[in-house]
């Protein structure tokens, strides 16, 4: 809220979260959270992918580059992947990308990987709540990356 005496104030920082959710498990889980009327912060914009294994490092980096303050990747539990071993790749890729972010001086906790099944609506909501707060504390991505 800007007061007449001060200059125009920036609106308080609201983290922008991009979530890549796999079609078969985590997206269904997110759906379940919705139909169960479980609340979770509106900061997350969800992108549905067929499999979390499809989420390439350039996709995550591009999300950051375009202004996402946090990126979360949700996939099926190991052993439950619709494509058998798609999430094996996710399990190697995303943690290694977190390592790289850290080495490059970017907070690794801006990127998170979790396994969420179609039945885990509550778990979905909890994770999103937690992650939103983490990213809120980390501050805007603009601090570490020139966006756009």
């Amino acid at each position: 809220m800007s007061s007449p005496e001060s200059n125009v104030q920036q609106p308080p920082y609201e983290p922008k979260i991009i979530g890549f959710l796999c079609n078969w498990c985590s997206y269904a889980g997110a759906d379940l959270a919705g139909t169960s009327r479980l609340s979770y912060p509106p900061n997350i914009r969800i992108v549905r992918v067929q499999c979390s294994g499809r989420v390439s490092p350039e996709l995550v980096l591009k999300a950051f580059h375009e202004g996402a303050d946090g990126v979360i990747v949700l996939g099926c539990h190991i052993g439950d992947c619709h494509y058998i071993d798609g999430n094996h790749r996710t399990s190697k890729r995303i943690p290694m990308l977190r390592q790289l972010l850290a080495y490059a001086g970017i907070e690794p906790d801006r990127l998170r990987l979790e396994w969420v099944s179609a039945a885990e609506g509550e778990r979905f909501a909890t994770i999103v709540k937690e992650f939103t707060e983490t990213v809120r504390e980390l501050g805007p991505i603009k601090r570490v990356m020139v966006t756009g």
Partner: protein
Amino acid sequence: MLEALRKKIQEIMPQVDGVIALRRVGKGTAPHLFLPGDDLSELALSPQFPLPTPVRIIQAKYPDKRFAVVVRGCDERQLVEMAKRRQIFLDKLVMIGVACTKEQAEYCRCEMPFPKQVDIGETVEGIPQTFLDDFLAKPREERLAFWKHAFAKCIKCYGCRNICPECFCKECVLEDNLWVTSGTVPPPFPMFHLIRAMHTVGKCVACGECERTCPADIPLTILYKLLKRDVETVFHYYAGADPNEPPLMDSTIFLADMDMLHPPRR
């Protein structure tokens, strides 16, 4: 060492259709295919030059011929990784292993300056990678400033990608305007370099040629070697070690516990 190499090549030549090695050109060296009957007086060993890419190019055109290639440790490991991706054919390749000298090992800060089979030269010890820990000792903001500065010098020559034998994709993501805005120097931070770094994961044998050919003196091997160390310690995957092992991404290795990697947060 050169004389010993010459003898070895003369020994092997009758069994193969050609030997891929370095030839003296001017004051430097260049990859060359020596054919049976060729004069070997121009054979050279230094300055070093990565040979796996010439192997790929020659084998692609002549898949039925047998070749020998002179390999240092990194060359051999690269060839193994390329073989896993069907870029070269190990069954048609004879490797002549050359151990690096102490000077070469220090120049490359190499952990393993020798191939599995050493035919020429004496092996020396690898160099401890303490510079990686020195780098990690910097606080996060300093690391960020370090790379922002380094990448701002980038002139997008693609030298790091061009010289890397593991980079053979006909359509490279780095050239796609969707990921890395084309036509600008420096490329927007940090897209080019972090995408490339991720693409080296599981493939990089830390030969250091990328850093060597970078006109802007960007210390790429710090990043790539840090990732390589993680791959080895957590996934127990050693690039170039075992040709029968599938590539890291293809394998059914998975990270059971996300906390097994401890990204430096500070």
